[in-house]
């Protein structure tokens, strides 16, 4: 059965405005779909039906007065469970925070909530956002709506699957090295990682602070622009948030790519042939639409992956030090003194991937190794930024695959951390440089699994991203309803 929540945010906002539907009907539609499919997907860790229906009813009452309606009002939303919600359990996918109830809202939710957004629940993710498959959640893996035996990608796998399966219309994730774009690619939805600092990180449970961004999952580029218009803007609680004027990012989205200079990032043999073919085909369509297409090389991309796997764990080792069993969260029994209590708590409360990265980061920062590892990685970061500066001198936007492969099977890579890390090779450089990037579906592989294509723009070049992505999306006109929904 097709549900209201299978429509895009833009379509639903129009129906709400026209009085064709109510916010309560919309919330009910979302909750119905959740009931129908989430047992199979495991996309949600916490559902908030009560909160959602009450909010929707309030909103209907408010809208019936003819009051102005924001573009997100009444639209069902899910938040990745690394975004804090006041009074609603927030686990970060970890046993460490199984019972943690934050005393405050993250700024992203504060803004959406203030604009009338309806929260349906909190989504599953890799523990503390560390992973590319969602297999590192303490609450079990998320299943890909396109193939229940495949991973949805990670770390924001629950948020991606929830949007792909129509459990919500859109959702928020976080992207530190590709954690929005890669699952978006693997689940056949649009994933936006904005410029670092454009959306406040306040209330984003930190993984790697200098790389973390809040991002969006939507079923259209226009919806991504709509959400960003509400989310973007300086926050006095986040010193790294950018002082940019509030604006409507949907403006100019239809302007097309005629004359746009599009640089295709050279990619090697590690890319699945279906994926490479799909990206090449998409580039031809962009050229056909009038874009000025050329080839570009980012010289230090390979080093970028190495730098990322030093910088992110180093920051994480410090960010995750606060989980010690003293003020909140899990505490292990049997500690003989406070140091012993902390070690037991952290040994039992964290999963294997988190421990691996804490160890890696602690080692990289420790006496005698800093210069060779962390210090050198920061220099590579400078080189990555310079690569982009060079590329953007000649191009308005860059194109590459989002992920080297389509969704892989659950368990296929879980024993090999290095192979898993390599799935982020195309997404990581944008985080190192702070530039915005978006992944949109560009086709399907031979097994029918979605393929994602990534556009990257210079710092604060979101409008260019949206223009390019919207033009390609419209031209391709893909049917992105996963087979899972045929049976419901």
């Amino acid at each position: 059965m097709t549900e209201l929540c299978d429509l895009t945010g833009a379509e639903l906002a129009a129906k709400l405005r026209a009085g064709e539907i109510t916010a309560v009907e919309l919330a009910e539609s979302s909750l119905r779909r959740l009931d129908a499919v989430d047992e199979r997907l495991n996309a949600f860790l916490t559902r908030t039906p009560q909160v959602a229906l009450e909010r929707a009813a309030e909103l209907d009452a408010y809208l019936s007065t003819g009051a102005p309606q924001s573009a997100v009002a009444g639209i069902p939303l899910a938040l990745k469970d690394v975004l804090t919600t006041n009074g609603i359990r927030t686990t970060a996918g970890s046993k460490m925070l199984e019972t943690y109830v934050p005393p405050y809202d993250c700024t992203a939710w504060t803004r959406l909530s203030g604009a009338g957004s309806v929260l349906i629940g909190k989504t599953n993710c890799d523990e503390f956002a560390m992973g590319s498959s969602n297999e590192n959640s303490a609450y079990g893996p998320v299943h890909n709506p396109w193939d229940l035996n495949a991973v949805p990608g990670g770390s924001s796998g629950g948020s991606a699957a929830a949007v792909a399966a129509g459990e919500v219309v859109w959702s928020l994730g976080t992207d530190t090295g590709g954690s929005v774009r890669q699952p978006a690619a693997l689940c056949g939805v649009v994933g936006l990682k904005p410029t670092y600092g454009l959306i406040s990180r306040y209330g984003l449970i930190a993984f790697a602070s200098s790389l973390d961004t809040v991002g969006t999952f939507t079923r259209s580029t226009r919806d991504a622009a709509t959400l960003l218009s509400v989310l973007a803007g300086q926050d006095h609680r986040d010193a790294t948030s950018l002082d940019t004027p509030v604006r409507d990012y949907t403006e100019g989205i239809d302007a097309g790519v005629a004359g746009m200079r599009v640089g295709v990032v050279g990619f090697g043999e590690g890319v699945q042939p279906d994926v490479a073919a799909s990206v090449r085909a998409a580039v031809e369509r962009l050229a056909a639409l009038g874009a000025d297409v050329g080839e570009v090389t980012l010289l230090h991309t390979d080093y970028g992956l190495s730098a990322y796997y030093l910088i992110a764990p180093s920051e994480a080792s410090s960010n995750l030090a606060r989980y010690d069993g003293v003020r909140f969260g899990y505490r292990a029994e049997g500690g003989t003194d406070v140091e012993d209590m902390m070690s037991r708590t952290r040994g039992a409360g964290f999963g294997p991937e988190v421990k691996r990265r804490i160890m890696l980061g602690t080692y990289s920062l420790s006496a005698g190794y800093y210069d060779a590892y962390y210090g050198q990685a920061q220099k590579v970061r400078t080189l990555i930024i310079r690569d982009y500066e060079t590329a953007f001198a000649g191009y308005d936007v860059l194109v590459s695959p989002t992920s080297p492969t389509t969704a892989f099977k659950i368990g296929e890579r879980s024993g090999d951390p290095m192979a898993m890390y390599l799935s982020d090779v195309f997404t990581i450089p944008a985080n190192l440089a702070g530039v915005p990037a978006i992944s949109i579906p560009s086709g399907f592989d031979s097994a029918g699994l979605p393929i994602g294509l990534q556009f990257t723009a210079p710092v604060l070049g979101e409008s260019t991203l949206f223009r390019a992505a919207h033009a390609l999306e419209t031209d391709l006109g893909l049917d992105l309803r996963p087979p899972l929904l045929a049976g419901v």
Partner: protein
Amino acid sequence: MPVEIDIDHVAKLARLQLTVEEQASLRTQLSLILEHAAKVGEVAAQDVPPTAYAIPRSNVLRPDVPEPSIPHEAAMQNAPEADQGRFKVVRIVETGS
């Protein structure tokens, strides 16, 4: 070149109690990952300044104006153990740090 890591020392620094099995697998995995990560050293970067912040900013400060604190109950709500309005922990053994 494989990297030798004193797992026990690093685990102590990180306050992580590890099982023998975890220590063994971490020794192998971290060595492999660090071998790959050590590629950053291949880049000639003597004259390259380090980047700690993706987007350069400076002097982002807050006025010295009080904002409401959270209620005491909210502060203590998540405490694993509390007593007399304070967070309670097992005894602290002083170290030189």
